[in-house]
């Protein structure tokens, strides 16, 4: 039976009527129309579905929606818009660090949480932080450069 789940996403409150156990990703995408997080594998292997839960990067494709109740969910849309991008998003634009772009949500959301804990990382630390995120187009060099650029500019976390 569907139940009402209270969610706080990108600072906004939502009451969603949903089957318990539904993964957070489907609620964000299908019920709330937030397309930043992507379905990549449904197995927590690729990172395309990454969102922040209380500031920590997590995989929304395996998280039952109830587990997000009462916690702050942030999606890619919550960082910025084309008109007003977050400095990290802007760094990806400046470096043209996108090919197909399907993985980029995961890259930005993972890097954003990482830069909060380590604002001045080395290149190796960046690679380590992103090692669980897959990119199939081979945009890795540019993604690393974009994160370095944002870190250098002292992008506020």
């Amino acid at each position, binding site marked *: 039976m569907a139940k009402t789940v209270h969610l706080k996403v990108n600072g906004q409150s939502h009451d969603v009527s949903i089957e318990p156990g539904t993964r957070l990703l489907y609620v964000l995408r299908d019920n709330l129309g937030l397309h930043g997080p992507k379905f990549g594998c449904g197995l927590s292997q690729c990172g395309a579905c990454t969102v922040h839960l209380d500031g920590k990067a997590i995989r929304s494709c395996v998280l039952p929606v109830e587990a997000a109740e009462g916690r702050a969910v942030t999606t890619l849309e919550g960082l*910025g818009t084309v008109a007003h991008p977050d400095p990290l998003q802007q760094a990806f634009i400046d470096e043209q660090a996108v090919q*197909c*772009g399907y993985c980029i949500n995961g890259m930005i959301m993972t890097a954003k949480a990482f830069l909060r804990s380590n604002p001045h990382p080395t290149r190796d630390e960046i690679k380590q932080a992103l090692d669980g995120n897959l*990119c199939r187009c081979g945009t890795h060099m540019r993604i690393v450069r974009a994160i370095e650029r944002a870190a250098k500019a002292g992008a506020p976390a």
Partner: protein
Amino acid sequence: MNTRRRDVIESLEISDLGASRRAFLRNSGGLVLGFSLLGPAALAAGRELPLDTSVAALARKGPFAAVDPARLDAWIAIHPDNTATLFTGKVEQGNGSPNALLQMAAEELDFPYEHFYLVMGSTTETVDQGPTYGSMAVRYAGPQIQHAAAAGRQVLLAMAGKHFGVPVEKLTAVAGVISVAGAAGKSITYGKLVGGKRLDVTIGASGETFGMKVAPDAKLKDPSKYTIIGKSVLRKDIPGKTTGEFTYMQDVKVPGMLHGRVVRPFGVGAKLLSVDASGLKDIPGFVQVVREGNFLGVLATTEWGAIQAAEKLGSRLDRKGPDDGLAKWSQWNDLAATDEVWDAVRKAPGKPESVAKHGDVDKALKTAAHTLKATYLTPFETHRSLGPECAIADVGKDKAIVWGGTQMPHQAQRDLAELLGLPVDKVEVRWVEAAGQYGRNGLEHVMADAAIMSRAAGRPVRVQWMRWDSHGWDPKEPPIVQELEGGLDAQGNVTAWRHQMWVPTFSDTTLLPSELIGKPVGKRNLGSAAIGYEYAFDNAEVSSHNASRVGVITAWMRAPGQFETTFAMESFVDELAAAARQDPLEFRLKYLKQPRTIGVLQAAAKRYGWQPRVAFSAGKQRARKVTGRGIAWVNRDDSLVATIADVEVDQHTGEIRVKRVVVAHDNGLVISPDGMYNQIEGNIIQSISRTLHEQVTFDHAHVTSRDWASYPILRFHEIPDSIEMVLVNNDPKFKSNGGGEPSTCPTAAVISNAVYDAVGVRLRQRPFRPERVKAAMDKA
């Protein structure tokens, strides 16, 4: 939002369930219906486009009429706010080539790139310029679009001449504004001049798809006056892709649609014996099972409901056998398992193809001072886009609309029409960008899945594959067997060269769902040699045994066949160079005559700082990690690439790290250098991944590498420290050839040759996973 598309969609609606699309759009909270075809910047700006463009006109002609390439409005629309739209049948697959087409159009139209938007692929909106594959978008569609845009510029100048009452010679067109020379203040924007009307002008066209000639009388710009071509512009799709505002195929929703999931057979050729749907009734949102022959799918009102129902039927990563699930399949175990694949390839019936044959190779081998023989093996590979295949279909009794991210929307339209038994002009394909493709993945197949399920349900259906559907069932790059033989005389000159290949098809276009329902659509073509043989060896034979399907559906994946043939050819040349105790670059140059081939090899060597020496001249070294260098080159359809890399081998573990990569790339005039660099980097990273890690595995029933754990790809910690790129002959004197694939080709040979240079071991079977490398070193 874009009113033009909205109205077209409404007028062509098929299975409206009473929900007004207009109301839906108003209330959908950001859910977008195919609007992504516009530039994301336009979307972000909420820009309105006028209704009266080519598309609306086409819609009036008949429901799904093909677009007439001889009309200017088939290609270009100018809007009153002095923005413009380019319509192209080519599509974006993540490599930015349509963006380059837009630059070419902006150049010839004299219109600012920033205000020029792109509509791609949809069959009622765009000309069929052939599929977007084979690194052919800029090469073939580019000139078509340049001519259309140049014709457009002439039309606009003529209109301005009339407007001002002056001869055209007195007019200049700059960045979307036409001015009268010497008359200050006498100027008008394209937008104002056109006044929201269609560019209802015949510009002429002949031929079809790649060979089509458009606006033959249009006069193209003198390349020395280029201001947009050759500039690194910002790609239009990137901002929206970094913020979540971009609409992918996976994001599209249609009112009243159901969510579908497929349940594939357990064994590749298994028959569906029974389905017990009674166990699905309690799943919230479950609607129905769709069963047709061996095709099985489920429909639900929510994605989660569809996923759960499919899982109960047997769609899951760890399905244990043909009885595991509410759907029961026959036992089927006729597949060649992983290690039996190459034997199956050799035994597959096929047709011979001769690429080169001169001199007498057998005789030369007999008299050679030194002979070498080697077998090279490459595995099945999967495209494995990060986003799984997704499509929506709305199939009615007498017409159908299918949304998909296919690289060939116009061909998909014809195939879907055949599948559904409808005339082609009763099927519309609305193209929306999906995740990166790298060839023919499952995006055409999932459109057929959606069409079959929508037909059964009488409602629009969205189908998204699960991860194991994608890894398990997308068309694969085929495994290839190659045998090479060479002879050297006492001075180390090559006297004999024989290269034989066994190549299953990489163009089996059979739609999997059509095969499952027992009504196959598509063709099982034969493989081909896919090689450019340029070495001037005295006695040479290059030939291929071209087979059809071997095991599972195989179709082109980035540089199909040639990634494999370059691996074997360029590694074996290296083997001969080492046997002849010669520097591998100098050895190659002795037998190469084409100036552009020599040009890229020399350019790469110069950037790298190549010093001549024999490979593995240092001999076996004690250090745990040893570095070597490798070189290889390719000519893929007149694009030349030479790659040199430094590679480190861990002698304890067999792990390979590619450290520094230098690429010299000659595809003639480059439209957007940064776009080209992005593509080369992508090719290099992906081909390193394919070389080191990738192999589809099988048991006798099916693919066993059905997720990212069992089909690993390159991770961040493994990427090179640097990829240095040199563009050679980037000059209008050299026409623009393709860049989407060529730089993939040399990588496997480069790495194999570098590993030999480091540790004296030849790797002749991909992938070069640590255990294989370690085993080879232990044997040496």
